[in-house]
């Protein structure tokens, strides 16, 4: 019966449309499979010690009950703890392979512990299982992005995410969990489009608790999916109150304020203000200034709907990557909200390709640690025979020349992308288009009525 119904439906669609749909489906399938094969090839063969450390802490949590001992990234650590509970039964004799020092802030996994892990008989399986959540997250992100755009852009958007070297490097080569938080951000948008704004907000908040990047998109979300300004302000007040309550509760329980701990000890706060212009004997940090300017400018425009959020969010993420010192794994945040805009304009794709190329060169700044050393599961002696990219670059050009030039170009291309995204949005180019038929996008609520 189902076959007959399908045939009838197909008869109703013109042949050329069927052919185009078939080609599109084959292309999408090819993209999915190509990305999957690349990821499968990398999963058991590469990792950064960050991956080992987060699972070592998960082992501490599960075996010693130290579920809250690592305070740096509580939410994302809990996700890993739970996943470790699931996978440990498939890792025979794994008790001796984990680090005892990963949970000690400022010390971390010792070389001898890493050696032990590398000599584990089921190393390939361990790495595969440890990275599996990131593979799923990448996959879900790809699917969510295709839900955000018009059907004709889906293959392009999927390719731009799923085959993106930045994404593959971060999730699969480096073995970094940022893709999990990106799921929260993209799912929040999809939920908001379908009218579940509050659920989306909660997801975005969770994403922000896991990694600090989504926190900067929060004001854009509240404003873009508001019913009225009064509601937006109320929501902002509720969030601030909730945070204050959380802060006071933790302060009461532990004697330490999370806010002050974050501001006083978390190195990323320093990153946010590290680029500053001297004004007399004062310093004006560029990122907070740029972010505030962007937000104020954006708030001053008609800014409801997914396009508005995607534009503001993408520009914010690009601003963060351009104007603060970043570790290699952070660059993935430049991608997810940018992808729907890249699909609209080939020039943006070229600029993004240039951004990736500059990023790859910039990786040399960290040397073998984030390049050849990632391949240690394939043989440590093999990796040690390859020259350190940092030293290769230094032999070609003085470091004080090539690093500022590459970083400057990377920041320029990244900022240009942010600017082009805002221009496209202002020009009314629909990144999210009519896909999904969400409630907020194409029928903005009349503020007068809502109030």
């Amino acid at each position: 019966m189902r076959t007959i119904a399908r045939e009838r439906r197909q008869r109703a669609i013109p042949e050329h449309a069927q052919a185009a749909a078939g080609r599109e489906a084959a292309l999408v399938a090819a993209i999915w499979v190509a990305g999957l094969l690349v990821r499968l090839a990398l999963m058991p063969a590469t990792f950064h010690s960050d991956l080992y450390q987060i699972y070592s802490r998960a082992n501490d949590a599960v075996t010693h009950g130290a579920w809250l001992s690592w305070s740096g990234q509580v939410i994302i650590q809990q996700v890993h703890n739970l996943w470790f509970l699931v996978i440990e039964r498939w890792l025979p004799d794994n008790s001796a392979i984990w680090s005892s020092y990963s949970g000690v802030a400022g010390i971390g996994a010792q070389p001898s512990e890493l050696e032990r892990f590398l000599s584990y008989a089921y190393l390939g399986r361990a790495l595969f299982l440890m990275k599996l959540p990131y593979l799923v997250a990448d996959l879900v992100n790809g699917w969510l992005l295709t839900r955000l755009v018009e059907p004709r852009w889906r293959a392009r958007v999927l390719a731009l995410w799923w085959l993106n070297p930045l994404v593959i490097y971060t999730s699969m080569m480096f073995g970094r969990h940022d893709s999990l938080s990106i799921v929260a951000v993209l799912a929040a948008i999809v939920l908001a489009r379908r009218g579940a704004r509050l659920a989306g907000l909660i997801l975005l908040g969770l994403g922000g608790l896991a990694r600090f990047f989504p926190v900067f998109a929060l004001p854009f979300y509240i404003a873009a999916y508001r019913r009225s300004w009064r509601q937006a302000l109320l929501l902002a007040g509720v969030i601030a109150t909730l945070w204050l309550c959380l802060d006071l509760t933790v302060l009461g329980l532990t004697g330490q304020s999370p806010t002050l701990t974050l501001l006083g000890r978390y190195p990323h706060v320093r990153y946010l203000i590290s680029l500053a212009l001297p004004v007399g004997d004062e310093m004006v940090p560029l990122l907070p200034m740029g972010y505030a300017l962007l937000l104020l400018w954006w708030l001053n425009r008609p800014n409801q709907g997914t396009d508005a959020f995607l534009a503001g969010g993408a520009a914010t993420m690009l601003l963060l990557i351009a104007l603060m010192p970043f570790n290699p794994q952070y660059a993935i945040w430049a991608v997810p909200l940018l992808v729907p805009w890249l699909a609209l304009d080939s020039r943006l794709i070229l600029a993004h390709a240039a951004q990736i190329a500059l990023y790859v060169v910039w990786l040399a700044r960290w040397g073998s640690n984030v390049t050849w050393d990632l391949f240690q599961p394939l043989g440590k002696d093999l990796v040690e025979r390859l020259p350190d990219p940092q030293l290769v670059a230094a032999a070609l050009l003085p470091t004080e020349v090539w690093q500022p030039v590459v970083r400057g170009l990377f920041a320029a291309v990244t900022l240009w992308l942010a600017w082009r995204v805002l221009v496209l949005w202002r020009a009314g180019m629909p990144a999210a288009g009519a896909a999904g038929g969400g409630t907020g996008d194409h029928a903005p609520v009349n503020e007068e009525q809502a109030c």
Partner: protein
Amino acid sequence: MLRAILQARRLMRGHLPRRSGSWGLWPAALLGLALYLAGCRAPVALVSSLPPSASTITVYTSASQPFYSAHDGLRGIQLRVNVPTEFSPGQTPALTGGASLRVTYEPDLDPRYPDRDFYAWPESEQWLGELVDGRTVGQTFRSLYPGLNGITLRVSTYGADFSPGTGRLREGQPAIVREAPFAGREVTVLPGGTEVEVRSAREGWAEVILPDGRRGYVDQDQFASLPPPSRRNTGEVILRLYRLSDGALLRESRLPASTLHDQSHVTFAFEPLPDSYRQEYRFTLTAAGARPGSAVTFRFSPIDVYPEGSRLEGNGEADGDLIFRPAYAERMLVETPLDQALWSGLTGVLEVTFEPTGPTRDCYLRVTIQAGDRPVIVHWSWIRPPGGLPLSSADDPGAPAGGLVLNALYAEDVPVLSVLGGLARGYARLFWRDPWLTAAYIAVVAGALAWVARRARESWSHGG
């Protein structure tokens, strides 16, 4: 290589249908050429950036800097110097006024052999006991430099230099008393002809006790008379060097036991082995004509202080290691005039380049700057080059404890094919050890390929 690529391109053109334009094989050829070139030599620097200068030293005669060289194919040295901008009439404008730069091996500073500190006699080390006729001791080791020409060990003669008692210095020759033999700090100067209490010998120096209770060392040659020795050692000590892989005897060196000093370093010298870089050897020590009571002994560590080799006793391995250090014939890697170097106004360094030389991987090298007609002003930094050793200046023994601001450039061979083979072996190892993972991969990959093939077939069936 280029010719081979062009020939391959012509051949392919003959057999493959010609496409519009002539771009078909160029990308592949260029990629092949890039891979070939990249696979041959990679430029590598010693450090990623030069350290900040603390100040400068003026080199009137020479200054040098040892460093650990991690790469092969040394092809250049960058040195931060001040170059003159004005020249007096008649003076030839030259960057350094005829200065030159030398690079040599510095095996004596390599800390990877058990004899790490010439002056240290730690209590954790012990003497082997008399090396008498019929006893064989030895050690395996890896030579880290070319030109192996000796083995230095620590020997004791059980008081064969002199007995404790009173010695008398030579008339008219004041003797410097030092805290340690050779280069120890000066304690005092004793007038010639002084009688002084001597206790023991070390490195051919006598340990003296001054009237005020202080101790020090005086060269035994400064003494007109010393108490008679407690014993006289007889016979010869024989060192034989074998190649470890096949046991072939390569060199032999003999020293009469009577010429050895108590508690001293002794080098068994032999003809240099030019190809000793990264080769493994075994040496043995035996005695001929040495009876109990007239034999010497050698120093060893009962704990393993040299993981690259093992101590030998008789025909078998024993715990610990002999305290030894290989000796090498001096070999100049590079000597080049500094005036021909390139000056960078951007970084303030002189860069001198030369044909790649070596081997220089995993070695300690020394860069020496020899001044020419005028002094050279060289920058130094509190951050020393890799290896962590301080600079030294012939003009100023009290030179700063930092390092010269320098970088070394290399053209290192990268074995691309071997690395690719290693990658393949690494993958094979990962999957070979875990059949479940292999099965899961085969299933997932086959499923994914089948799915995409079905989609493609559907697309074609719709005329796509």
